């Protein structure tokens, strides 16, 4: 056996803070998220899914352009169609990543160590969520712009492309990215409540994809009253750049719909934090 840790000088407490807190927790969680391969795989998949959809749609439209009716041509929302893939496919990916950020702590039992080195649980929860949101935002915003720009480049040949300076276009790109990040954070919050990876992903998919479909079973007047409050499912409609704003009288504006889903996310995060604080780890 080699020498045991002898009475050496206490390791520096670094930043000179009064106690272990948010700064150290943020650095720690950044190290964690960057040091597992699943992060890179998931984020790469997110970017590829967004780009692939954009290329497929835009290249297809450009090739088909000469056969399209004038109505179809004028009705084309080039911006929405180039980034809708990032929303539809990206949310599926980011939900897994957001859930794993929390549930992998439980599936590996590493949560015991994490909460032993930092017993202030809400600080830990905040740091982990903030690091996830930051990493997810950078990648998702980049993917949104990349999908948009690639799509418009392909449509430029038939002069059907949209530009960021056109009304509603920049909003559509940013709102799409924001919605995807919120999906991830929602999943993160639910992960802290449910703790199991499979359970969390199932619950989030059910909430995002199933609830809006089930709502269609409601009598039409009820549905019309409820649709603006539905989580996520109607968001593809809300990211339009070409049509009227809001797209129907039963919906909020794009930012309004984003705020509704932001509210759901906030509730999930708060409930997750409260349960984390109160339950045994």
């Amino acid at each position, binding site marked *: *056996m*080699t*020498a*045991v*840790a*002898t*009475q*050496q000088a*206490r*390791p*520096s*407490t*670094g*930043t000179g*803070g*009064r*106690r*272990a807190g948010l700064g*150290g*927790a943020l*650095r*720690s*969680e950044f*190290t*964690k998220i960057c*040091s*597992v*391969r*699943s992060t890179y795989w998931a984020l790469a998949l997110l970017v590829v899914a967004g780009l692939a959809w954009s290329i497929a749609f835009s290249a297809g439209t450009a090739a088909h352009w000469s056969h399209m009716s004038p109505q179809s041509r004028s009705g084309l929302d080039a911006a929405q169609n180039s980034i809708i893939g990032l929303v539809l496919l990206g949310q599926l990916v980011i939900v897994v990543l957001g859930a794993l950020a929390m549930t*992998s702590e439980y599936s*590996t*039992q*590493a949560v*015991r*160590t994490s*909460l*032993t*080195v*930092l*017993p*202030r649980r809400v600080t830990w929860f905040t740091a982990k969520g903030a690091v996830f949101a930051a990493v997810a935002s950078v990648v998702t915003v980049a993917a949104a712009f990349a999908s948009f720009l690639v799509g418009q480049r392909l449509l430029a040949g038939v002069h059907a492309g949209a530009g960021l300076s056109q009304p509603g276009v920049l909003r559509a790109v940013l709102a799409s990215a924001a919605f995807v990040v919120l999906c991830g954070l929602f999943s993160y919050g639910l992960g802290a409540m449910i703790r199991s990876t499979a359970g969390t992903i199932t619950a989030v998919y059910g909430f995002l994809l199933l609830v809006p479909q089930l709502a269609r079973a409601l009598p039409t007047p009820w549905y019309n009253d409820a649709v603006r409050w539905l989580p996520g499912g109607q968001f593809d409609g809300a990211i339009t750049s070409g049509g009227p704003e809001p797209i129907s009288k039963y919906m909020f504006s794009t930012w309004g719909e984003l705020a509704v889903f932001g509210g759901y996310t906030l509730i999930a995060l708060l409930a997750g934090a409260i349960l984390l604080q109160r339950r*045994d*780890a």
Partner: protein
Amino acid sequence: MIEARSLSKRYGTTVAVSELTFTVRPGVVTGFLGPNGAGKTTTMRMILGLDHPTSGSVTIGGLPYSRLDWPMHEVGALLDARAVHGGRSARSHLLSLAQTNGIARRRVDEVLGTVGLSDVAGKRTRGFSLGMSQRLGIAAALLGDPQILMFDEPVNGLDPEGIVWIRTLMRSLAAEGRAVLVSSHLMPEMENTADHLIVVGRGRLIADCSMTDFVAGGSGGTVLVRTPQRDVLAAAVAAAGGTTSAAGDELSVGGLSEEQIADLAYANDIRLHHLAPVRVSLEQAFMELTADSVEYHAGLPAGTQSAASGMEAGR
């Protein structure tokens, strides 16, 4: 110093820990002993603030764990060596822990050297053997150079070399003046490691004493004597203030040392054929004490019970 006062934990109607009061002192290895399901891990989780006590309290140097400013500099704990994300390298794992308490990056490499994992620092921990995982867990516990160390069943599943390594480590940590709390259900392991024992069964405190007292208490300090003049010796022992009981053709003597008995026999002209103190192993002492508090009995016929405990010892 860890101080538990009337610490209790109930899950529904199941009592996991009941009214535990004990102190873990610096400079000694304190063995935390009990059968499976006795509440050892639950107690350790409460010490670390992972589980909330139903009632009672436990403090580290007077403060509840969650109020420690720099927890890693106060307490290092290894609860479950396998409880790490297997996709992360050993160095990244330790770095992520160090950063929470503002511990410098070079300290990570230092502890990796201490536990002998420098060569595999960049490898993902998924491929680690149990022995390597234990070393990694101990490296994590040592990161903050804490004055209190806690290990939950640290030798489970280790090879003899690993067991010796951990035992030596715990002894030297205590020799440096640290408080070391180590739990186990394996009695022989404690016999070679612990100075002080806290014994629990079914969540209740059974004993809190030094290792020497524990073993002596279990055997009752008896001496076994074989003599052709049994009745004479019994009378002499009684006169000298000892107690006797017949054990076959032998006499079991309590309250006197073997020297006193030999001198007594010599003075009374009694021939002795055999004289030996009954050395009760920690194992036996433990079995006696916890006989009523084992949660799950194997349901063996009465006659085979002692044979079964003998097998347990060999494991």
